[in-house]
């Protein structure tokens, strides 16, 4: 059965994921299509996320739709103490679909149970960010020609990084070999290792960010944030150990691409940007096509 909402990447089958990626390919060839004519999409950002919001609003605009909403909760009735349920039930009356970002985990699932219009989760706390996962999958398939049997390296904050967890869950459908490079304090949680064990997939953990990346098809970089460390000394020691520099890419495979969900701070040196293997800005562009695909797929506007 096809989904009415997009809440968690784990709700989507391989077939439905492929359907969205194929639609995104179509939008990349032909981005301006008037499919959302006379449609209103609400973009409710209960916490700010400029990049995700602009990407959605760009996608809606390219489809000829209109959008309404707020960019952080201080400018909405939420600041008066309105419950999420009331906000969603009200806004569902004003729109054909709700795109929402919320700091509380599970908020999107809850919204989908009270809303009469489709909900697209644009991030619920540390839980899920499925449109990011789909654009990551799109970027991987586009650059590698396939999603099957790839060697994917995740680098940085693997403990709190929800983009890592969701992408790991999605890639586990494609016989991926995983490599996890992180400081001890931010290593991949046991529940994900157990998940991979159950699926019989290979994974390796590393503390050093070294020439082991020569086997990678994809290097997925993430930001290491100061506030994640209980010990600030530990942060100072580790912050420079997980930085990707241009010379490190010398012995990597020719098909290899560097991805990053952005915003980047210092974990990818700017001298990587000119390298052909740097893909993170194109990845962000792919986000617009992927979100066009998600919106039109859920609203059933594409045959």
């Amino acid at each position, binding site marked *: 059965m096809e989904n009415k909402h997009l809440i968690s990447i784990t709700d989507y089958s391989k077939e439905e994921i492929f359907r969205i990626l194929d639609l995104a390919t179509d939008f990349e060839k032909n981005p301006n299509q008037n499919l959302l004519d006379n449609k209103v999409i609400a973009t409710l950002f209960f916490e700010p996320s400029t990049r995700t919001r602009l990407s959605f609003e760009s996608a809606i605009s390219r489809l000829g739709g209109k959008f309404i909403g707020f960019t952080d909760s201080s400018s909405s009735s939420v600041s008066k103490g309105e419950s999420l349920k009331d906000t969603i039930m009200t806004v569902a009356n004003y729109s054909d679909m709700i795109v929402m970002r919320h700091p*509380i*985990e599970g908020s999107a699932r*809850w919204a989908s149970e009270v809303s009469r219009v489709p909900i697209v989760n644009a991030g619920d706390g540390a839980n899920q960010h499925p449109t990011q996962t789909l654009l990551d999958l799109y970027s991987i398939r586009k650059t590698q020609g396939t999603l099957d049997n790839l060697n994917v390296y995740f680098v940085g904050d693997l403990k709190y990084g929800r983009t890592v967890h969701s992408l790991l869950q999605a890639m586990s459908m494609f016989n991926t070999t995983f490599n996890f490079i992180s400081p001890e304090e931010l290593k991949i949680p046991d*529940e994900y290792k157990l998940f991979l064990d159950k699926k019989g997939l290979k994974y390796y953990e590393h503390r050093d960010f070294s020439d082991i990346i020569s086997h990678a098809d994809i290097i997925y970089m993430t930001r290491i944030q100061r506030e994640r460390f209980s010990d600030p000394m530990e942060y100072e020691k580790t912050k420079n150990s997980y930085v990707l520099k241009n010379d490190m890419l010398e012995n990597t495979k020719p098909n290899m691409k560097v991805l990053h969900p952005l915003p980047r701070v210092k974990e990818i040196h700017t001298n990587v940007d000119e390298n052909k293997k740097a893909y993170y800005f194109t990845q962000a562009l792919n986000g617009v096509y992927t979100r066009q695909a998600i919106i039109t797929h859920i609203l059933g506007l594409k045959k």
Partner: protein
Amino acid sequence: MEMNDKKLQVSAIKNGTVIDHIPANSLFKVINILGLDKIETQMTVGSNFESKKLGLKAIIKITDVFFIDDDINKIALVAPEAKLNIIKDYKVVEKKVVEVPDNIKGIAKCGNPKCITNHEGIVPKFTVVNKKKVAIKCHYCEKITDSEHMKIF
């Protein structure tokens, strides 16, 4: 003989249910889950008995009360080893063991303080992901709560 007179007798019940092998520290959770604080028939509760399996165990004897399986299975989250004896006319007519259900609704709280169920009045729902060492996955925030961190309403 005098000594015997002063001995506390936990008497057998004529009709009702005996719940045995409750971990002593789960006793009050079991009482809560089954709503035993609200029943009006005779009930005997004993706790901190020595048990080879559990360390310290508790036992509850309730007169004239019988439970349906769905209710009984709810206590599996806190007392997975519990055994029930159904008593009719002083005789055990049936023995039951609890079974951890596949899904639970409204019994436990999600252990994640950032979960929506802990912020708005929502009945929490879970999938049981481990039945031996009970662990439940929140339907909303997708986080796993293990039995150690489980809070019962």
